[in-house]
């Protein structure tokens, strides 16, 4: 039976609403507050106020593989090098959360993944340390330098840093929020990324979707709009320039290797082709979150939260 593509996409957004995971969200907020308090206590006057910088702040979060990004802005004189800043924050968090969480060095952040609690909830918070460029400059323009711990697209590990303005990145999405359904499309692509374990960073997705809205007349039904964006990415991802709203000198397109861009273009081409060919295929690329079934969600094979195949295949 044919699927109403736009209705399905709306259902996808509904089942992925962050508000459906209120308990998990509250736990993230609580842990975030703990970390902020700890950082303030540890670094005192060396640190400005940490703030939310991820998808939750941008209102583009979905409720699967949910995490918080916490920006930790340090003063210029707090550390002599960015590496020292990064390692200091890592050592501090590792020491503090040892035995209660996995603490990992990531590309520009330090990941804290708390062990599952009694409800099976796993709280994940990425702390992004950044240092102001010059003494007392941060309160003026919010610009920070981030340390690149490991290879970040075309940006080499250890040898480079990223200068950015995370506050401006957050407000970029907020400023574009008046655009019709922009954030819906970003959320849908994040659902695709999460369910299919794809490479592009959320930030990359956000910027390329904004670019598609800039360049194309994105209108029509939800599927029409998504399709226009998918086609834009398919045709342009290999060449598009995506400048960081936090620092126009940063080329965010470089955070994805040429090879990964080719794969993303192929991904988009496949989605458009398969969904045009058979509307049911939309369910593979943009699945509902089975954890929060809709009232009218019926399972073709009967019962249960998710579909199971009949015994019709052999080896």
């Amino acid at each position, binding site marked *: 039976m044919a699927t109403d593509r736009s209705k399905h996409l709306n259902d996808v957004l509904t089942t992925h609403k962050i508000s459906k995971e209120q308990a998990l969200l509250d736990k993230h907020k609580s842990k975030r507050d703990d970390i902020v308090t700890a950082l303030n206590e540890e670094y005192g006057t060396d640190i400005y106020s940490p703030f939310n910088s991820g998808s939750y702040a941008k209102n583009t979060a979905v409720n699967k593989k949910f995490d918080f990004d916490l920006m930790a802005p340090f003063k210029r004189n707090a550390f002599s090098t960015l590496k020292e800043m990064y390692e200091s924050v890592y050592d501090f968090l590792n020491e503090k959360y040892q035995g209660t969480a996995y603490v990992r060095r990531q590309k520009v952040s330090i990941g804290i993944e708390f062990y599952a609690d009694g409800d099976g909830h796993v709280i994940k918070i990425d702390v992004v340390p950044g240092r102001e460029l010059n003494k007392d400059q941060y309160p003026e323009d919010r610009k920070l330098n981030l340390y690149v711990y490991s290879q970040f697209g075309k940006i080499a590990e250890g040898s480079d840093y990223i200068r950015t303005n995370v506050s401006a990145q957050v407000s970029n999405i907020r400023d574009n929020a008046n655009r019709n359904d922009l954030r819906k499309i970003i959320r849908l692509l994040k659902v695709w990324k999460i369910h299919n374990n794809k490479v592009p960073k959320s930030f990359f997705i956000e910027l390329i979707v904004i670019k598609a809205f800039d360049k194309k007349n994105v209108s029509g039904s939800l599927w029409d709009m998504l399709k226009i964006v998918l086609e834009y990415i398919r045709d342009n991802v290999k060449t598009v320039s995506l400048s960081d709203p936090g620092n126009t000198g940063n080329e965010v397109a470089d955070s994805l290797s040429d090879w990964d861009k080719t794969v993303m273009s192929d991904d988009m081409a496949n989605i458009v082709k398969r969904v045009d060919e058979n509307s049911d295929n939309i369910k593979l690329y943009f699945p509902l979150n089975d954890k929060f079934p809709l009232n009218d969600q019926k399972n073709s094979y009967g019962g249960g939260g*998710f579909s199971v195949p009949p015994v*019709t295949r052999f080896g």
Partner: protein
Amino acid sequence: MKERLQQIVSVVGSIENVTIIEPFTIDNTTVKGSLEVTVGDRKENFTVFIERPYPAQFHNMETIRFLNKDLIIYDHVNADGSICIHTSHHPSLMEKLHIDIASLKAWMQKYLIDQSADSHYEHVITPMVAVSGIRQVMLFTDLNHVFKPGDHGTINYSLLAEGKVKGIRTATYILQSIKVKGEDVECKWNKGYKALHPHQGMFVFLEGPPVKNKRFMVEDWDDLNGVLPQDFVDLLAATERSLRQQNYLKISVLLGYPISDNEIHWQLINVEKGNFPVFVDKIAGARTIHITRLKKQQILWGDTKNCSYEYFFGRGLLDSKLTDSKILIIGIGAIGSMVAQTLCRGGCKKIDLVDYDAKEPGNVCRSEYQFSTGVNDKVDELRVQLNDISPFIETAGNVMITDGVKFLWEDLDGQKFFREYFNGYDLVIDCTADNDLAHLIDRLELDANVVNLSITNHAQELICAVNPNLYMSLVHVLKLLNKEVEEDLYNPTGCWNPTFRAGYNDISVLVQYAIKQINLTLMSAKPLRSFYLSASEGNDFQIKSITF
């Protein structure tokens, strides 16, 4: 035949720069004559034999031969002086004669006048001699050692198999190792072949092949006096003495030499008991000197084949991302056994197998098993077969692991164990068609590539689901295909478990297509994607591939 003779004379006589210098006659069914062929300033005479099948080839050989023994030193001339030409097919005798003589002229220009060298190595022509009616063949691989001229010592080799070639008994051996300066240098066979019973022989390494006329191996031991190191000649004599009381037919001697900067070749010589080619020569002088020398005696050359991985799979192999992968195949029924054999023949070096089931006669018609081996664990039987196919494959078998996944699933340590077990492989191929297993493996969120292959009844579709999101893709495709519970299944007598209907050809055409698609994706370094193949019904067979 007369008409044929006239036709040959007429055609040959009409070809430019070709003169008949000895008239063509018929000897039994062979037409024979002599020609003078001119290319530029060069004139050469050739005796021509045209055999009865001409213009057809026979056993891949041309049935026309141009002979001139004086040209034996030039490239592509056989020991009998015949020029080695391979020309294109033509059904007309007249046209074929034109083609073949043009090819002879081309040979004269390239190898006689220009003396061009071929880019590939042409092996020295070695006359093979059977020992006590048995032809001997020694297989070897690359050896991780730099040999120097004059190196000599002992070898270990094993009998691989005995058979017949054109009615001649043929024994095939594999070289196991060479002991040089106290170091055992091993051939790169897998463990199974290395475990074969060893025999001892000898080796000597020279700076080049001992040849006459550039490309023909010497045929007499006497020709090797001054070529083989004296230490080695002494060793031959000592070996004969030390084995005097032993019961043996012959010993094998390998003679090695470099054929390029990074490749060596070995030739086999057989030395029969009681017929060692050595004698003690007395050189008179102030003091008589005794020196061991080589007799005037025919060398019993055997045959050798370089079976290094590169040659063994030289005709074609899968992409290195597959061949270098550590692979686990779960479920080795029709699909799994075909996948295993295809990967093995494609050069894969490490394939482990999992299946709890036993092979029964009913499995043979559509999987890679044999009737002759009776009822066996599939894992054991397929491992033997893979080992029979490739001396480079290492395999291990497991009959428990899939049961373990289900029994221990709820146990967190169990999940950790299985995650580590499967992540020990680069590629896990699940051919069980077990939905529970597919679901559980998917939930492990493995780093390893996981490919799930299954087929629908009558081999209408083959489904290939890959991780991440493997289970969901599988469910999705089955939903799309709208498969209802199958009723037209095959129920073997006395069997409680009905199975699908499809034959070897029906299944293998889809399995090969799927492996081709996977291999192409890996070659292009792109990520694997789920897909399904749909076989058309009716006479105009086609396979349609839908990739997600």
